[in-house]
Every structure is written in structure tokens, then in C-alpha cells.
């Protein structure tokens, strides 16, 4: 039922994981930008978590001030290029486009945004400079979208920044967690390099913050700290058989896929457990990796799934089969997984044969770090509580954003948080002086 042949070369992988929002050419951008009505108090702007002046940048593209368009975008969102393709634009800016009310296709805002930012990234066009040195120093934990956004913003404000990153790469989930048909590793890296080359923040790789001693050192050497850590590994659900070979967490699977592409090992018959966007990604990706059968099993009804409808539709179009009201009670197998036993809502048991199980059943909280920090208030879901105007935590020296405060949302939310926190940090440090 899966339509995809198992990819055996980079070219075949690229074909199976064809970009959903390919880069526009100049002609496309010209015609598409002409469609924007330049709405007053534009709903697209309101729908954008970072409040990009969308009518302005589209007008700028149309008048061939593409550098200006990119500047407008980055002025609001440091992940401008990535957000153009990975944002769920259909439910954000494009979902709010007034053309929808006319049964006319909305302006392709995401692709236009990607077009403008790609131009400046490709040309290495310097749009930003470091601000006049304030003498302040800030440490950032985690080089994901939130951390990098915070760093870039702080540098424009004249604050010195060092980022501590557990992994050996930056961008967090952009490289390690986003579906490959949304953005390529190269595109992500290019934007990261573009920002870092202009704004010169230092990133310490392979530098997880795991001890109280490290925290004490950060507090001694820096005026403030931004917590931009992501969530942990896929959580265990305490189903018998979870430790069988062939059972993998969705986050771990996607990370492997992003780094190894067609060389990623995957079974032939795949069961994906879960109903969120990560489950949809894992299912779509399994199908595109050439699995002959991909079953998406969710314990609730189709309507109750947390995933966006367009993500489920995308999985279906890739050949994924959805099974609902299927509560996994045991993963079967002897050494290697051979199937999953489910109980239906009425209590009937049934088995789906498979040789691979991908659990997209939620990630562990990133709570470990939080416990090391004094006076850091968390909410009932182990998320850092912050003042929404500044993203400052209960410990005034600490600010936070992204997964650490929302438990896992979009890249664009992290980008907003990072920028907001940077301004919050500067205000806090300036007032304290």
C-alpha cells in the first residue's frame, strides 16, 4: 500500500522526501506577491506568533527590494527562513489570509518568506550588526531555535553571548526533529551560519549542563541565563515488550533519519503509536522510506488526535493506514518485535503484525536541568513558569523559552520566545544596574 520504493541513494531519498514547499523562483514570487491585498491590520500578521509585517515584506518582494523583505522578516523572527517552510502556515498566516473567505487560495506567505530569506542567505548579505557593547554577558543553554534567536537578538542589543549545546550541532529540532520533506539539513545549517556569521555568538558544542557545579559556574560568569532546552527522549509507556529490538521512539527515529537519510534502518511493516504531529511525521516518513505497510494506531478517535488535519492527510497520501480506538496493551515478539496487541474501545483484542514499532507517545520532560536551578518555579507539567511579557522566570537571573515553557510547540513559538527573552534580559539587566 505504500507507494514509495525504498530509497537506496541520496537522489532517491530526495525524491521520496520531496520538499512540500519548494523554493520559489523569481517569476513565481513576482506573481504570487502581486496577489497580496495589503490588508489593513492584516489577519496574517495577527496569526503569526512573531508578528512579522507580512504585507510589507510581500510588497517589498514585489518591488524587488528582496533584501528589504528579508530584513522585515528577520526583524521579527530570527528563524525567518526555516519558519517559511516548517511553520504550519495553513493554520497560521495562510490560514488567516482573507482570500480564504472568498474561496480563493491564500497567498503563499510561507514560500514567499522562504524566497526572500533564501536570497540573502545565499548571497551572504549582511543585514544586521552587533549593537554597541553594553558590557553584559548572557549564557544560553541549548542552541535550538529559541536559544539561537535569543543569542542573535542579544548580540544586536550589544550583549555578549555564549551558547552551551549538548549535541554536536545547532538548530535543535530543525535538523534533529523536523520532517525531511519540510526542510533540508543544508537549508537549516545555512541559516544558522548566516546568523552566526553576522552576529558572532560563541557556541560550545557537546556541552550539556548537567551538574550544580556547572550551574554555579554559569551564574558566576554570566549576568543572566536563557534556558532554551528541548524535551527529553521518548517516554516509556510501560507496555510489555517496549524493550524489544525493533521498538524505537519517534524522536529518536526522526533524528536518525535526519542524520542518516536513506541509510536509516527501518523495518518493512511499521506500526506507529500515537496521534500527534510527531506520530504523523514518523508515519509519513516510514512510508517514504519504503516500508510496505505503515499503520498509524491511535487509542482515541480520529477527531481527538492532537495532530493537524493536514498532517494526517499528508500521512494518508503517503500510503499510511489509520487505525483508531486502538489501545496498545502489549508489544509482541521474541527478541525482535513481531506485532502489537491492541484492545479496542469495546475491549476486543486484536494484533497488527509488524517488524517495527515507532512510539510517538510523548517525550520525557526536560526537568533534570530545572531541578539544578534554585527558586525556579515549574508548572504542573514540569514547565518553567515565566512572565509572558519578558519570559523571565521566578529566579530573576533565568529566562526561558520554547519547549522549556510550552512543553513542545512550533519552531516559530521558540523563535518568538527567544527574541522576547532577549529584550526581557536587557531590560532586566539595565534596570538592575
Amino acid at each position, binding site marked *: 500500500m505504500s507507494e514509495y520504493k525504498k530509497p537506496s541513494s541520496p537522489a532517491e531519498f530526495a525524491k521520496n522526501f520531496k520538499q512540500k514547499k519548494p523554493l520559489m523562483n523569481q517569476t513565481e514570487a*513576482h*506573481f504570487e506577491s*502581486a*496577489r497580496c*491585498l*495589503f*490588508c*489593513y*491590520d492584516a*489577519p496574517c*500578521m*495577527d496569526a*503569526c506568533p*512573531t*508578528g*512579522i*509585517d507580512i504585507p510589507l515584506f510581500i510588497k517589498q518582494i*514585489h518591488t524587488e527590494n528582496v533584501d528589504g523583505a528579508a530584513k522585515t522578516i528577520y*526583524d*521579527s523572527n530570527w528563524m525567518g527562513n526555516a519558519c517559511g517552510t516548517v511553520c504550519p502556515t495553513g493554520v497560521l498566516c495562510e490560514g488567516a489570509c*482573507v*482570500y*480564504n*473567505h*472568498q474561496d480563493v487560495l491564500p497567498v503563499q506567505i510561507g514560500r514567499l518568506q522562504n524566497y526572500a530569506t533564501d536570497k540573502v542567505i545565499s548571497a551572504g548579505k549582511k543585514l544586521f550588526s552587533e549593537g554597541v557593547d553594553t558590557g553584559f554577558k548572557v549564557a544560553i543553554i541549548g542552541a535550538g531555535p529559541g536559544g539561537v534567536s535569543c543569542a542573535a537578538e542579544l548580540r544586536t542589543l550589544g550583549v555578549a553571548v555564549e551558547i552551551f549545546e549538548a549535541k554536536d550541532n545547532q538548530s535543535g529540532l530543525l535538523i534533529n526533529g523536523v520532517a525531511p520533506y519540510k526542510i533540508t539539513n543544508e537549508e537549516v545549517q545555512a541559516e544558522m551560519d548566516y546568523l552566526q556569521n553576522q552576529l558572532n555568538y560563541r557556541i560550545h558544542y557537546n556541552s550539556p549542563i548537567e551538574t550544580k557545579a556547572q550551574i554555579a559556574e554559569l551564574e558566576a560568569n554570566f549576568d543572566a541565563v536563557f534556558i532554551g532546552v528541548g524535551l527529553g527522549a521518548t517516554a516509556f509507556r510501560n507496555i510489555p515488550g517496549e524493550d524489544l529490538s525493533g521498538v524505537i521512539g519517534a524522536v529518536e527515529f526522526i533524528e536518525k533519519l535526519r542524520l542518516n537519510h536513506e541509510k536509516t534502518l527501518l523495518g518493512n511493516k511499521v506500526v506507529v503509536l500515537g496521534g500527534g504531529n510527531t506520530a504523523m511525521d514518523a508515519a509519513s516518513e516510514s512510508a517514504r522510506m519504503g516500508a510496505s505497510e505503515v499503520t498509524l494506531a491511535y487509542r482515541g478517535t480520529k477527531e481527538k488526535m492532537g495532530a493537524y488535519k493536514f498532517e494526517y492527510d499528508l500521512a494518508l497520501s503517503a500510503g499510511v493506514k489509520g487505525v483508531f480506538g486502538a489501545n496498545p496493551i502489549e508489544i509482541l515478539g521474541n527478541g525482535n518485535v513481531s506485532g502489537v496487541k491492541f484492545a479496542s474501545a469495546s475491549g476486543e483484542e486484536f494484533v497488527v503484525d509488524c517488524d517495527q514499532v515507532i512510539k510517538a507517545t510523548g517525550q520525557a520532560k526536560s526537568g533534570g536541568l530545572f531541578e539544578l536551578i534554585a527558586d525556579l518555579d515549574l508548572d504542573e507539567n514540569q514547565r518553567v513558569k515565566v512572565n509572558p511579557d519578558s519570559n523571565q522566570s521566578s529566579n530573576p537571573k533565568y529566562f526561558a523559552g520554547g519547549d522549556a515553557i510550552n512543553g513542545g510547540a512550533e519552531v516559530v513559538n521558540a523563535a518568538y520566545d527567544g*527574541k522576547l527573552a532577549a*529584550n526581557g534580559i536587557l531590560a532586566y539587566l539595565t534596570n538592575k544596574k
Partner: protein
Amino acid sequence: MADLSVDFAGIKAPNPFWLASAPPTNSGYQIMKAFDAGWGGAVWKTMGMPTINVSSRYGSTNYGDTRMAGFSNIELITDRPLEDNLREIREVTERFPDHAVIASLMVDTREEWIDIIKQVEDAGATGIELNFGCPHGMCERGMGSAVGQDPVVLKTIVEWVMDAAKIPVITKLSPNISHITDPGLAAVEGKTDAISLINTIKSIVGIDLDTYAPYPVVDGKGTNGGYCGPAVKPIALHMLKELAQHQQIKRTPLSGIGGIENWRDVVEFILLGATSVQVCTAVMHYGFGIVREMEAGLRQFMDDKGYQTIYDFAGKALPNVTEWKHLNLKHDVKAKINADKCIGCNLCYISCDDGAHQAIGLPTDGSRVPNIIEENCVGCNLCSLVCPVEDCITMVQKDDGTQQETWDDLTKANKIPDTFNDVRAGGKGHYVPEPSDAFKTKRKDKSGW
């Protein structure tokens, strides 16, 4: 079925769709191709004295996603030898004896005019058009618009031509003048058989932002061009109407030119008194095949309205084009927004608030449908013009249609107001915000870091 044939001042053609004297009529090849495609006539690219043309000749005004909304050229009259043109005129007229083949001419002295008229008549041209319009190049040598801008000279030349010509003569006017009726009247006094208008408008279509030279750029320099294309249609329509309503000119057949591209344009020109139309830019953009749409549309219009010939409706809009002083001051329309159709772009709000009369309010009910503030709506139409949704904002008549009062009436009754008491203006029903209220309407800005 409607009969589209015309007899324009004695020049017969199977339909009123003619090619204007311009690059599309540069050769017999092009004109034969055009006639084969359905054009009823062609005004040959202007013949006259030898010229040399520059390389880089056209510039354009693009608007939105539309190319060549306006078009400018600095090309001169034909640079092909007269004998070649004459030979091809003969070939075309022999092959298409029922079509209008009109020789556009531009020379200087009386002898030159008499000589060239004889030659094109001998070649079989069915009419002559006098090019008194081109506003670039030739005018620097005392021809083209230099003549069109000087009614005395124009009349003299028309008289020379009328003395010599045996075939119908059309005088083509330049719009680069304050009152088109001045050269129009001069042409009539010179006994021209017909008038065509407009020629192109003096223009600079743009400046190259790297070299600071105007388009079209000729080795780092440029000159004014002649502007045409869809952008000039409103100017052409007005000038056509000026002649068509003029007591001494209106009996002279008028050929309409200026931005005509589709059947609607054609009908509009005919409604204002044209009985043939001439097209250039649309053909330069889309080729001769564009005439298919014009002919089909004109036929459909005539069938729908029950017209047999274009003369049945020629000039039919003229009685409705009047002077401002005759407009009914009691007529009252106000904007109405159809909430079901509104898509919430708020362009009506901002255009009215920033560009008109502060007569539209933003919604306060959580929707994005703005509301009309009736007491402030002067019925200007702006909101209905900017609204991107067809028939969403309509202008609704509020007066009962029984009241009639014009400025002319007031003048005659000696009732011209000596105070500012227009009910649609400040102080009477219509409020004007305080200047400092400007800061209260500032849009909320999420990205105001």
C-alpha cells in the same frame, strides 16, 4: 446577425477594427497577416522622408502582475524605402480590395505633400491619414506633434492636402495640447474628411536606478517617448468626447485611438462617437489574434442590445457626458457593505480613514466586517473601488429621485452659497476628527520591539 461593416468618411471596411499607424503596420506582410486574422483596416506605418532609427526603442509601465499597462516608444516614421511601401500597398489593396488601407503621411513642404499624396493614391491606398501627432524625434524637425500643437500650421497643411487629395483624408491629432478642440477645429476648417485621435502622449516611463537614464535607454541617454497602451484610454476617451460634442466638429467622422484592447474598450469608444477604432499596443503585446476577442465581444453586445450596425449606438453616451454644473446636487448615495461577502481585508476602512472622509469604522463585534458611518459617508465610491470582492460594497441611492438642483440652477436663481454650508462637509452632519485624534487610531503592532 449584426453588420459590422463601416463607411468611414468614404473609406469602406468590413469592420471598424483597424490597425493604427505603428510598428504592426510596417510592412505588407504584417498587414496581410492582420487582414487574414480579421482586421478590417490598417493605417500604414507613416511614410515620409528618410529617417534613421535608434536601437532600444520601447519602454513599458508594468503594474502589479500586468506587463505593459502603459507603453512608450521613440521610434520614428518608417525607415523602409518609399518605393517598397508603395509596392506593398498595391499588393495588399489588390489582394484585399474591400479592406481599408490608409496611408499615414508626414512630410514638410507643400510640394512634398502633393508629391507623396499622388504616389500613395497611385499605389491604391483607400485613404490618407496625416500624422500630426508623434511627440518624439520628428517634432524636433518641425513635423508630427509640432504641427498638431499649432492649429494655424495644421490648418494650412490640411488645406494643402485637401487641395491635392482625391481620396478621403483623416487628420490625426496629438493629445499634447491643452484643448483638443483647437487643433480639431483647425482640421475641420481646413476641410478634413475625418479626424483620428489620440496619438501618443509625451512621456518618460521610468528611470534606471543604476544608470540614472530614462527608459528606453540608448547608450546611457534617453528622450521623451510617446505613451500609449491601456493606461492612456481615459485620456483618449475624454478627448474623443470633446470633439464629438463640439458643434463645428461633431459631424466629422472620428476614429478612436488610445489603449483599445478588448471589445469593451471598442464599445466605449463607439458610445462616445467613434465610428472606427485603431489599435496598436494590444497587437504589439498579443499579436493580431487579439481581434478575435474584440469582434466576438462587439457582436455579442450588438446582438444583446439589438443593434444592426455600429451606427445604431455610435455616440449614445454623449448626451450623458455633461458639465459638472449640470450634475444633480440632490442625488445622494451611500456605501453599503454586504457582510456575507466581506472577507475582512479592511481596505475600505483604511482607504476611507486615510484617504477620504472617515466614514467607515472598524468592527467592535469581533468580526472583521467594517461598518459605514452614514452621516459621514459622502458617497464618494472610494471604498467600493478598493474592495477586492465583486459587489460587496455597493453605493445605495438614498434620495427619492424627485429632487433636482444643479449648480447651474443655483447660479440662474442667484442662490450660489456665500458660506460653507454643504451638508456633506464639515460642521453639518459630517464630523471631522480633531487633528490629535490621529494618534488614537495607531494600529496595534505586535512586533514593536
